[in-house]
């Protein structure tokens, strides 16, 4: 039987580093917003600079601000010049903005979608081929169901000859109920395969490297289980305060802002079973299995706190309640520590400690895997710190790398042992500059590769872990614990640790 057109492979694509991407019309809702200016437009420029955009590419920006095509292009130029990771090549920048149009209007205004439909059809007709359509929802979450609904009403949710995809920014709800409702609203119009929920953390090279570390090296996998691992600590510490994000942050807090999405993704990457293939659904299936294996944390498994004034980087800094735009009686947490379990065959009995916070001692994101102590100590312990359990640390930022603590003999006549570090830094082995996470994610959305996007059941599984914590906090009376800015967080976090164990120094 002869192969159909779709089944035939493109022999010219073989061996190319950049695989062809189908001609695409990208529509950004919220195109004049902060995310668009700082991240999306610069990312699109960098893709254009590298010749990675589809050979035919059009972009339509839409938002409520009234402006002409020319004014939108001026705004895009300015944003790209200000925020691009490389200095723009003016000829490429001009070529790119020439492909941009702007459509002002409210997101519930039918005429916006009518004009979108007409413009997209014009692009197809002009090129003599149907373009794929990617709708990027860079708006307030309350507009997600509105926009998706309107896309459906106006027949923009599907195309006979091309793919239609919708990219949704976080947050996907502020609790499980909202996440489920949003997923229902979206999936009433679209198929799950069309929905690309962004967690930009997954687009970072450092996070993708975790999977390479685990599944491309035979050295660690044999010990990657409860028989050898004593505990795992995942830390995402920031040394800065809320800054200009106070308005958003105060309605969110550390748990919603970082734990529900990014940190649980890191947990899933640490714990997941190796997928048979590195395909979107196989990877996400494995991650969902991990999240579903996390039992509901009890109130004793969490600590939350707010930073008080203190000293950071040698300077006195304000406490959270004194920050601009933060209500004086806010109970929003800027620090959270959790003790979680993963109840499955591989991980039963291994505690996972997660902590994140603002205004901590320094900026670091790391996963520390501490092995069980050796079963018998033949060495004398006097006169040294002695034999310590091996700790494998995967650092995601700022110095991406892997370090392993090993016991080594202290030079001298006695057999005394102390830990030493074996370090590997990615920056010494790859001199190339990593692309921004949004470049990778926008390209993947255009190519239809959902591996680095969050599936509906994944989001809901994340909320099932976080919802009970939020509910327990809501019922708690009394003052929220505080910690001085510039420290490792509140002392209460130590109560999550069993006797003899401590948090790693930040």
């Amino acid at each position, binding site marked *: 039987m002869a192969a159909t057109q779709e089944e035939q492979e493109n022999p010219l694509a073989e061996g*190319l580093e950049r695989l062809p991407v189908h001609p695409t019309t990208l529509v950004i809702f919220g195109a004049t917003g902060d995310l668009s200016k700082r991240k999306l437009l610069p990312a699109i420029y960098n893709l254009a600079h590298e010749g990675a955009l589809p050979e035919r590419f059009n972009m339509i920006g839409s938002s409520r601000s009234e402006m002409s095509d020319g004014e939108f292009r001026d705004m895009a130029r300015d944003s790209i010049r200000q925020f691009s990771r490389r200095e723009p090549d003016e000829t490429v*920048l001009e070529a790119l903005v020439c492909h941009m149009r702007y459509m002002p209007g409210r997101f519930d205004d039918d005429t916006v979608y009518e004009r979108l439909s007409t413009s997209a059809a014009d692009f197809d007709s002009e090129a003599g081929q149907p373009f794929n359509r990617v709708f990027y929802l860079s708006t307030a979450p309350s507009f997600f169901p509105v926009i998706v609904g309107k896309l459906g009403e106006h027949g923009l949710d599907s195309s006979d000859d091309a793919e239609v995809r919708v990219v949704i920014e976080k947050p996907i709800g502020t609790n499980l109920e909202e996440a489920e409702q949003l997923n229902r609203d979206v999936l009433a119009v679209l198929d799950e395969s069309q929905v690309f929920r962004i967690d930009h953390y997954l687009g970072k090279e450092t996070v993708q490297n975790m999977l390479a570390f685990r599944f491309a090296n035979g050295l660690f996998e044999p010990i990657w289980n409860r028989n050898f691992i004593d505990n795992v600590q995942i830390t995402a510490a920031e040394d800065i305060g809320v800054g200009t994000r106070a308005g958003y942050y105060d309605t969110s807090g550390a748990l919603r802002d970082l734990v529900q999405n990014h940190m649980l993704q890191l947990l899933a990457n640490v714990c997941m079973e190796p997928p048979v293939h590195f395909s979107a659904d196989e990877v996400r299936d494995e991650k969902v299995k991990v999240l579903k294996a996390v039992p509901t944390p009890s109130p004793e498994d969490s600590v939350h706190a707010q930073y008080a004034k203190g000293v950071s980087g040698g300077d006195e800094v304000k406490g959270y309640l004194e920050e601009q735009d933060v209500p004086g009686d806010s109970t929003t947490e800027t620090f959270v520590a959790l003790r979680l379990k993963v109840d499955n065959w591989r991980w039963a009995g291994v505690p996972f400690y997660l902590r994140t916070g603002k205004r901590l001692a320094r900026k670091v994101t790391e996963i520390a895997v501490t092995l069980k102590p050796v079963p018998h100590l033949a060495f004398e312990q006097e006169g040294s710190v002695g034999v310590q359990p091996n700790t494998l640390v995967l650092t995601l930022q700022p110095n991406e790398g892997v370090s392993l603590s090993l016991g080594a003999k202290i030079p001298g006549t006695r057999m005394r042992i102390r830990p030493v570090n074996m370090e590997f830094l990615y920056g*010494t082995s790859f001199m190339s500059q990593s692309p921004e996470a949004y470049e990778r994610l926008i390209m993947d959305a255009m190519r239809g590769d959902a591996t680095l996007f969050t599936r509906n059941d994944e989001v809901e599984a994340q909320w099932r872990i976080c919802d009970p914590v939020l509910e327990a906090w809501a019922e708690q009376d009394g003052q929220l614990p505080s910690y001085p800015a510039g420290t490792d967080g509140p002392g209460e976090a130590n109560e999550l640790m069993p006797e003899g164990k401590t948090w790693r120094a930040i």
Partner: protein
Amino acid sequence: MAGDLGPGRWSADDTSPGEIEAALRGLLKERFAEHETFAPARVLNLVVVADSDWKGEIQNRLDRVGRHHASRTILCAVESGRTTLDAHAEINVEDETRSGEMVAGTEQVTIACGERHLPGLDTIVDPLVVTDLATLIWAPHGHSEGLDALMSLAQIVLVDSVNEPDPAEAVRRAQELSQRAYVVDLAWLRSTPWRERVAASFDPPLWRDELRRISSVTVRHQPDSATAAVLFFGWLAARLDWQVESLAGQDGSRYGTARGKRQEVTLRMSPDPEMSAPGLAGVTVETASGMSLSLDRGPGGLSAKRRLADGRESAFTVMGASRGEAGILGEGIRQALLRDHTYAPSLEAAASMLA
């Protein structure tokens, strides 16, 4: 005589590989003492054999490649009549690093040597390359004796086939080197955007079948870059399973035919005197059903013109910044650690066209 030139630098006249290696170790210790977070980059050894008169130009080219540089570069500057070895070594660190961030260092060694050293160049360079890292060798000014000596140390050879005036000889030499190491050819890398664009143009399922109906391909190239054009034909022939024949030449142009599965393909390549940078200037692909695609260099990328089988025409820009010659060299160094298995078959097809 050895001299300490200050932090991170060392030089000596009439020296030996052992002394140079010891000096490098000393420089590394200095850097570790200076920066708590210093770490030597460990990516790739690059050994360059170049004319002494042109070592500055080579150094400038290497300085401009951007982030895709080797972690240890050993530049052997060949000076006519020289009998001794002089050397200079330095460890460079990034200028802009924030407190607490890793400071990666790259090592550069320049050795002044004579032609008499070339047959045994491997014995000079061997102690200086970082063991277990891949080693890339590059001899931009010929020095085939030195290159041959270094082949035992190298896994990768960097060549630029357009530097050889005779395309047949350029392809023969690249094939010969391919038998002994992985070859990264800058002439091939210059055609990457063109190959990507032609592949992308025929990628939509609607048009993929047109690949079997290609009836003619015309390549326009910089007058000295005929080899790049033949490699492009070679790529199409290898990927699309065309049977190729020798190209005939006239006034700098070459033409011929290839036999596709369905039909004959006319091939034509012609020099573009307007073009100064090495590489391709334009490509036109036509199919038997009346479709055509033409790509030419333009502002902000490639200017494309497409005619569909029904006669409709459109013009558009395929966006992409020019990488420049420094970017091409950087790309060559980056590619040393990757593997493109489509180059060798393309080279073989190109050799058949030039037979």
